[in-house]
């Protein structure tokens, strides 16, 4: 087990930021910590890294208890925090070199590592730039390079794509997958379910400091009753038809607004077929029709009763 968190409790005065949170991360995983803003992701990461004192619980990394002085553990961890943490005075190259130098003493080896990291995040053309001259996306990439240049075995990234342009975001996500292929175990926090769905092999959904559900994305989607969402662009659908649509077997909800019919179906086969048949029989005019499988947002919605994004 690379990381093992047992019944972690963290309070800020009256607020319980982490409420008996338990999870474990296996070697080679990209482990996603998914939750809305304020759900306790950053707090959990800070506790795991011993940056924050916690009230109860146990944390093991590489099967050893983690503490502020566990330097042999820290040596193999790379962190990328939510806020960009680089020196304004130093150039891109110097920043990466400094943070890498906290882990790697050997100058020649470090030079290779820094060059690798720069190539990895695609900042080759910006080596001599100071952080002030970088755009938001490039700055995030620098932030990541500073955290991973020493080639750690465990990489922890806390919302590394907040406020980043799509191009940089893709570059970052591809980078994380690449590092994972090269053998690193990754813990990735985000409130963007698409990202988590895209790169994480296992996901923990948290809300208000509590674990809501955990598993692969397929497992998570299996946990809920929702089978598929059918959206139809239909004109002048009478109230009566909507009601009888609701009464069909396997249909859990129907909404009709501005010529859009939204239907949620429970798990089962041929849902789309039976809906289509119904519409034909009722002589409803329609233009577009499509069906979606549930997303993690639907999982979150069904379990907590609210949207993942605020």
């Amino acid at each position, binding site marked *: 087990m690379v990381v093992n968190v047992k019944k972690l409790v963290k309070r800020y005065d009256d607020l319980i930021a982490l409420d008996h949170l338990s999870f474990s991360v296996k070697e080679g995983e990209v482990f996603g910590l998914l939750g809305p803003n304020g759900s306790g992701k950053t707090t959990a990461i800070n506790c795991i890294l011993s940056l924050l004192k916690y009230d109860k619980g146990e944390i093991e990394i590489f099967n050893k208890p983690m503490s502020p002085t566990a330097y042999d553990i820290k040596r193999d961890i790379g*962190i990328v925090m939510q806020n960009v943490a680089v020196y304004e005075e130093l150039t891109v190259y110097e920043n990466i070199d400094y943070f890498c130098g906290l882990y790697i003493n050997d100058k020649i080896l470090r030079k290779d590592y820094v060059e690798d990291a720069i190539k990895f995040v695609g900042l080759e053309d910006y080596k001599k730039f100071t952080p002030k001259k970088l755009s938001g996306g490039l700055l995030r990439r620098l932030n990541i390079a500073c955290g991973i240049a020493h080639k750690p075995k465990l990489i922890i990234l806390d919302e590394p794509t907040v406020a980043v342009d799509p191009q940089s975001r893709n570059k970052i996500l591809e980078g994380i997958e690449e590092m994972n292929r090269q053998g690193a175990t990754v813990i990735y926090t985000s409130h963007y379910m698409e990202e988590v769905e895209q790169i994480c092999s296992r996901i923990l959904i948290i809300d208000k400091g509590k674990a809501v559900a955990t598993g692969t994305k397929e497992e998570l989607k299996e946990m809920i009753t929702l089978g598929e969402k059918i959206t139809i662009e239909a004109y002048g659908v009478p109230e009566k038809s909507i009601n009888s649509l609701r009464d069909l077997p396997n249909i859990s909800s129907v909404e009709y607004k501005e010529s859009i019919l939204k239907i949620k179906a429970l798990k089962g086969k041929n849902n789309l077929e039976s809906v289509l048949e119904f519409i034909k029989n009722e002589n409803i005019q329609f233009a577009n029709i499509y069906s979606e499988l549930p997303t993690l947002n639907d999982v979150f919605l069904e379990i907590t009763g609210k949207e993942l994004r605020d």
Partner: protein
Amino acid sequence: MPVYKLCIKIFKKNISTLLIYFFIFLLFSAIMATSASNTQKELEDFSYIKTDIAFINEEESVLVEGLKAELSKVANFIELPDETEALQDALFFGRVKYILRVPEGFTGSFMDRQNVNLEKTIVPASASSAYIDLLVNKYLNTAKIYVQNMEGISQGELVRYLERDLSEEGHVDILAGPENSASSYSSIYFNYMVYPLLSILIYGMSALLISFNNTDIKKRVNCSPLSNTAINIQFSLANLTYAFVVWGLMVAFCLLVDSNNINSSTFYYVLNSFIFTICGTGLAFLIGSLAKGTQAVTALTNVVVLGSCFISGVFVPTELLGSVTLRIGSFTPSYWYVNANNQIARLTQFNFDTLKPVFSDMAVVMLFAAAFFSLAMVIRKERRYS
């Protein structure tokens, strides 16, 4: 030593800004110091302007000629007729400041060890006539010693001895004189140095502290396998390096410019400034821990440094400051530093007794340093747990 290297690198990055400060201040203090010491020199030179005197000689002798030769170094002889009225007019209208009359038979009586005196008429309360008095007395008293101790000394021999003695004494006078006076270039420079030294220390070190205390960057460093102790040691070492490089450059500049006047007081100036640098480091550390941004530092620095320079005798000599101001000034370390400098400037002899007040001033500066460092530590500790 990654943290040490980083700090030095950041100092170097800020160097262009700091160098501008450095040179402006150096130029400023150099100009102030040279102009102040020039004024002082003019004041001193004033006493060497030759005084107009009348020398009325009722007899010719080798001894009297010797005295006249000695006086000619500081006086112009004005020829006047030996008439009471003419002489009084000359004094009254300021044509002469001093009338010296050698009465007949003076030399004979003097060589016979009798008590005789020259007659003088002077303008009352004149500094230059007092100076002539001094010289005449010195000449005759010295001569008296020779006459009384050397049986049958000839006038020629006596004059030769006197010539030698008085010129030697004059030489000694110069050694104890202007070089050590309160206004040598070094003493002024070391007083003015408070301003550039403190400003550069605070700007440089607080800029570093602010970057270093950035909570996000701290998190990164705290996640690394470097121990807290190692980080703190390297950080402190870097700051000390910076402080002493700045101090060294400033002292070196002064010694270079004033290289002709390096003497025993120089050593104490340098020692005093070294101790003050330690104190300034403490102050910079405190301000860097208090202030959250560069602008706050600039504001605090201006208030603290400029303020203390004005009330502690750095910009305005202590003699010109009111007693209330000085009392307030004594709550700043620069007051004690300047005080020590001024005392060193007045010293002609350097031993433990004469240096005692200087050392006690230095001790006060050290106490300030200790206070600044402890206060900064307390603040940093508070911040860490909040």
